[in-house]
């Protein structure tokens, strides 16, 4: 029997959509923060680094709870966004926010490492040739750190695929709308023995997707010479 025969594609496509968008949207911010962390001599660096890394160790449910407080219709940000007609809870945008926040530190770490490894002498050379700080960043530092940027995107994508706790808090578990692969597996597993059988195809797809994302990340990273 084909184990993927009974696969429901809706959560799979939703997961890919959410993870792709989350990884892409967080990347510019991750690059900016990584650059600052790699280059700054500010004593605030350690504090910022700790705050950025917090989602790595916090229970995702806690992150999700805080996001819910912030984005709920009566929340500090939610009320303002609501006035503009934007709702960021209980829909798939909320799943994107949850995934982006939780995977942000992984992307920052990968990019920061790449910036730390770039040769500062090359940046100096660019400046003595007349390039200002922005040109030096855009034409030297960032292209030289591209492997880290690629690795950061795929790490964030893979982490976003697996996001559960923060997602269920802020986006909920609405089949066809916010039910990503992990949430669908959870629902199936909670619905008795037949549910276990329905969960299997999704479990296999989750493993395959995560494996493929990490592999693709490594492959592209090595090719980006």
């Amino acid at each position: 029997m084909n184990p993927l025969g009974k696969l429901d594609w809706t959560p799979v496509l939703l997961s890919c959509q959410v993870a792709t968008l989350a990884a892409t949207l967080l990347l510019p911010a991750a690059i900016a923060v990584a650059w600052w962390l790699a280059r700054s001599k500010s004593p605030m660096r350690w504090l910022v680094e700790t705050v950025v890394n917090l989602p790595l160790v916090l229970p995702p449910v806690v992150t999700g709870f805080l996001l819910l407080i912030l984005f709920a219709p009566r929340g500090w940000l939610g009320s303002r966004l609501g006035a503009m007609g934007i709702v960021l809870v209980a829909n798939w945008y909320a799943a994107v926010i949850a995934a982006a926040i939780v995977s942000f530190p992984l992307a920052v770490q990968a990019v920061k490492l790449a910036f730390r490894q770039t040769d500062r002498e090359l940046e100096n050379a660019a400046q003595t040739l007349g390039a200002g700080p922005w040109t030096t960043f855009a034409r030297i530092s960032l292209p030289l750190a591209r492997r880290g940027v690629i690795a950061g995107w795929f790490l964030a994508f893979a982490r976003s695929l697996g996001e559960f706790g923060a997602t269920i808090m802020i986006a909920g578990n609405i089949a066809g709308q916010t039910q990503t692969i992990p949430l669908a597996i959870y629902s199936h597993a909670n619905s008795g023995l037949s549910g276990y059988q329905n969960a299997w195809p999704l479990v296999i797809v989750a493993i395959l997707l995560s494996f493929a994302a990490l592999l693709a990340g490594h492959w592209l990273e090595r090719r980006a010479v």
Partner: protein
Amino acid sequence: MLQFNCRYRYADGFSVEIGLNLENGCTALFGPSGSGKTTVLSLIAGLIIPDRGSIIIDGTAITDTELRIQIPVHQRGVGMIAQTPQLFPHMTVRKNLEFGRRARKLGFREVDHDQLIDALALGPLLDRSPATLSGGEKSRVALGRALASRPRLLLMDEPLASLDEVIKHQILDYLAEVISRWQVPTVFVTHNQAEAVRIADRVVHLAAGEIVNDNPHDSERRIG
């Protein structure tokens, strides 16, 4: 051309205190490791800031600790060639050569682009990646790249240190030719006296962060 008078102290206590007046032409700063040669270049380029002192090029202060002037590196018009060529590995030779021209928004004619390529025999290398070049070729590209940004002063920090003898002589010939043809005032740092004498109009001898001897050569050794 250049009036330099700076004091710079490193965290380990080593300090450099030097006053220099340079004319146009090529000046060699000669001395052993740890004599402060590279520090002088880094101060002129603006890569480090002196504890006190001033640096004036053509009557304009680019550094003055009393007046709180510290012109950023990229606005000084001071080119620098480091000990290793520091070519941008993700760009072809052509893109490396054009980097300074584009950064300073100059035209090909303004930087004598084609003449520089000819003078340094870079034509066959233009589409190559820096990783595929030999040590001598890299040095020529670094020299061309620095000159193509039209610096008003060129600093060279032991640019020949990593080359073998034969290539070293070849590069010295190129160097002598472009310096005299483009009339770029140059400060050339070396710990090799033969190199210093061969290329420079004037040799300044440094030791332990101070000038110990300053001998302007006679005009017969002048290049060009």
